[in-house]
Structures are given as structure tokens and as C-alpha cells.
């Protein structure tokens, strides 16, 4: 069986595919999140050193992973869009950005919640925290740029370019911030935990990470459908859709 990649590159066909897929993704995400939270908050034992407060990592770590993976995905779609000039790429990048920004914000938020009882402070200028904050700014910059340009095609391509430039810069920023941090505060606090995790905790975290993946897939499919309808509202096939029937373009 061959997957017809270019067949689904057209917004019209992808609209239907995304419509079939997103309820499955959403249902799976809900199930996995419920299972992951159950393991994380009910089954897994309290940590010997950190007590109950450590349980925030079941949310914090998957959310942080996603915030970085989504930026990579945006860069991927942007490169596709710039090289093949496909219409869907820009839509996918746009659909990903708000979710990525949300995960980056959640990562900072839950990190602060974890930091208060563990380190005694909401925020430290640790290398990882700082680069996560800058990643959040990169998301905001992308969204600000694409929403400021009225011509949607230009907005897509300009956004793709800034996403790629940002993706090239992310490792440099991370490296520079690590350097800066080691110079400034030496070994004050580190996010790396010395004891290895119990298997149960690891499972809880992996299941939560999978739930975040599926949530992202679901929400992106859903959002890209809205974007496609909005962009193609003058096309006949959109006008003939049962869900848009009777709405003036």
C-alpha cells in the first residue's frame, strides 16, 4: 500500500482526512491522559527526596518536550512550504504555532510551580528555563508576524522564513545561554536529578507524553480544518460542504 502524499497535500483532500482523523486522536489523547494522570497522581509512590511535589513532572516534562518538538515540526513544514510551495504547509505551520506557544507557556508555568517548593523560588535564570522562555518568544514572534500581514500567501511564506531562521538559532541560543549561566552562577541549581527514576514514574511520564502528542495531532487537525475553510471559503467545494451550507462566503 502506498500513501498518496501529494494527493493529501491539497487542502481539499486533507480537509476530509483531518476530519476523519481528529476524533480518534482526541479520544485516544483523553484516554491516555486519564491513564497517565492516574498513574502519576494515584499509583506512583511519593518521591523519597521531593515528596508529593515532584508529581508536577508528569505534566511538566511531556509539555516541555512538546514545546520543542512542535517548533521542529513548524520548521519542517516551513522548509517544505518554501521548497515545494505547497499551500498546506503554511496552514499546518499556523495550526501548530498556538499549540506550541501554549505548551511553552505551560512548561514555564508548571516549572515555576515545581520550582517554588523545590528550589524555594518561582524562577531562576537556569539555562533551560531561559531558553524555554526564548522559545516562547519565538512562538509569539511567529504568530505576531503571520497575523500582521494581510495577504495570507505572503504571511505564510514570511512566517515560514522566520520559523526556519528561528530553528537555526535555537541551538545557538541554547548553547549561549548554557555558557552564560555557567559563567554567572556556577553550580547553584540544576534540573538534572541524580537518582534514576522508578519504572512506574517513567511509564507515567511516557504515557503523558504520548497523550500530549495525540492532543497536538487532534487539535492541529481540527484547527487546520478551520483554517482551510476560512482560506478557501470562495471555492465551490467549501460551499458544497454540508457544514458550511447556507453560510455566505
Amino acid at each position, binding site marked *: 500500500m502506498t500513501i498518496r502524499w501529494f494527493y493529501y497535500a491539497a487542502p481539499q483532500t486533507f480537509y476530509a482526512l483531518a476530519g476523519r482523523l481528529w476524533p480518534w486522536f482526541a479520544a485516544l489523547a483523553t484516554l491516555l491522559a486519564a491513564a497517565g494522570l492516574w498513574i502519576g497522581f494515584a499509583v506512583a509512590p511519593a518521591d523519597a527526596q521531593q515528596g508529593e511535589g515532584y508529581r508536577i513532572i508528569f505534566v511538566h516534562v511531556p509539555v516541555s518536550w512538546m514545546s520543542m518538538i512542535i517548533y521542529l515540526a513548524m520548521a519542517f513544514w516551513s522548509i517544505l512550504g518554501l521548497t515545494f510551495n505547497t499551500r498546506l504547509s503554511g496552514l499546518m505551520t499556523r495550526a501548530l504555532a498556538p499549540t506550541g506557544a501554549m505548551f511553552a507557556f505551560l512548561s514555564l508555568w508548571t516549572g515555576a510551580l515545581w520550582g517554588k517548593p523545590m528550589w524555594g523560588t518561582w524562577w531562576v535564570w537556569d539555562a533551560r528555563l531561559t531558553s524555554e522562555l526564548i522559545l516562547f518568544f519565538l512562538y509569539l514572534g511567529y504568530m505576531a508576524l503571520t497575523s500582521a500581514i494581510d495577504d495570507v500567501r505572503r504571511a505564510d511564506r514570511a512566517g515560514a522564513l522566520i520559523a526556519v531562521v528561528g530553528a*537555526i538559532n535555537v541551538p545557538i541560543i541554547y548553547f549561549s545561554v548554557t555558557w552564560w549561566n555557567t559563567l554567572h552562577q556556577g553550580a547553584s541549581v540544576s534540573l538534572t536529578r541524580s537518582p534514576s527514576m522508578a519504572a512506574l514514574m517513567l511509564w507515567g511520564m511516557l504515557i503523558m507524553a504520548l497523550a500530549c502528542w495525540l492532543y497536538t495531532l487532534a487539535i492541529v487537525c481540527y484547527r487546520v480544518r478551520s483554517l482551510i475553510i476560512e482560506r478557501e471559503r470562495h471555492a465551490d467545494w467549501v460551499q458544497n460542504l454540508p457544514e458550511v451550507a447556507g453560510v455566505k462566503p
Partner: protein
Amino acid sequence: MNIFFTVVVRDLRLALRRKTEVLSALFFFVVVAALFPLAIGHEPAMLRQIGPGVLWVGALLASMLALSRLFEVDYRDGALEHMLLSPHPLWLLVLGKITAHWLLSGLPLVILAPVLGLQLNLSADALALLSLTLLLGTPVLSCIGAIGAALTLGVRGGGVLISLLVLPLFVPVLVFGAGAVQALSSGLGAQAHLSILLALLLPALFFSPWACSAALRIALE
């Protein structure tokens, strides 16, 4: 190569006919540097410590102020469109514009920074090093900033948008630029910082004109 110098000379000449724009960015730098002691206090030891950072942040903001004019004027009077249509490679023209922008907004900062550094009680070594880091770092700011300027060409609220796009990307330059002076004062030596600044400058010089050309083509297609 001739066309490169033509663009540089043209941009310089245009800027010198409207001196206020160049000078206002420069005065902004001076004023910002003067505000910090007023807000934080004037103990010499503390000023010496925050001095390099203050001047670097000031330089960052000042070079960003000038960015919105980089392509905007040419865009409005149609000169930019002619550059895109000309037979010369666009990246060379863009490199010329970036160079002119640096000569107008970066180089004055490099020259002015030691004077402001004196106000902030920096030692002679630190002043020399600060100028050197600005000399290596401000071209990177111009290169990265030009991409932002090209992308926001003719966009509503372009000025504020540039800062949101470009400031996060300035972080590495800021870290190593201001960090060099800190490293010197803490006795570590600034060799590594300077090498890294140079390592940031070279790829920026190479890639930025290319990315700017792509962005200009997107903006003007």
C-alpha cells in the same frame, strides 16, 4: 563588486541628507546609558559591574531602532523594486544595504561606547574590550535585524513587530558580547568570547543577505 560599493555610497549619502534619523538613534543610546545610573544608583563599584551589560542592551535597542528604516524608504519610493529587477545579484545589493546600515548605526555606537563607558566607571582594559566586542557584535545585529526588517516590510505596526521577531535572536550576541567584558573583569580572559563572536559574525554575514533576499522577494512578489 562595484555595485556593492555603489549601494553603500548611495545609502550613506541618502542618510547624510537626513541626519536626524541617524543622530536620534545615537542620542537614544546616550540617553538609555544615562538612565540606568539614575534608576539604579551611582555607586562606582556597581556601575562598573553593570556597565558592559547596560551599554550592550543600549546598543541592541539603538541598532534596532534604525532597522525599520533599512528597507522601508526604498520600498515606498519604488527603488527596492528596481533592485529586485536589476541584473545584479540581489544578495550583493542587500549586503551593501546591510553594510551601510552598520556604518550608520553600528559603527557610531562602537566609537561612542568608550565615552559612555567612562561615565559608568569602566577600566581602560574593559573599555577597549567593550569597543572590540561591539565592533564584532553590531554587524551581527545588523545582519539578523535586516531579516526582520525585510519580513515586516510595509506591515502594520512593523516597528514593534521587528523587536518581537529579532530581539530573541539577538540573545547569543548579547550573551557573548557583554560576557566578554564580565569575563575580563573576573580574570578569566575574553579570548573565547571573542572567538565565538567572530564565529557568529561569519555565518551571519554569509546567510543573512541570502535570507533577506528571500524575504524581500516574498514581500514584493
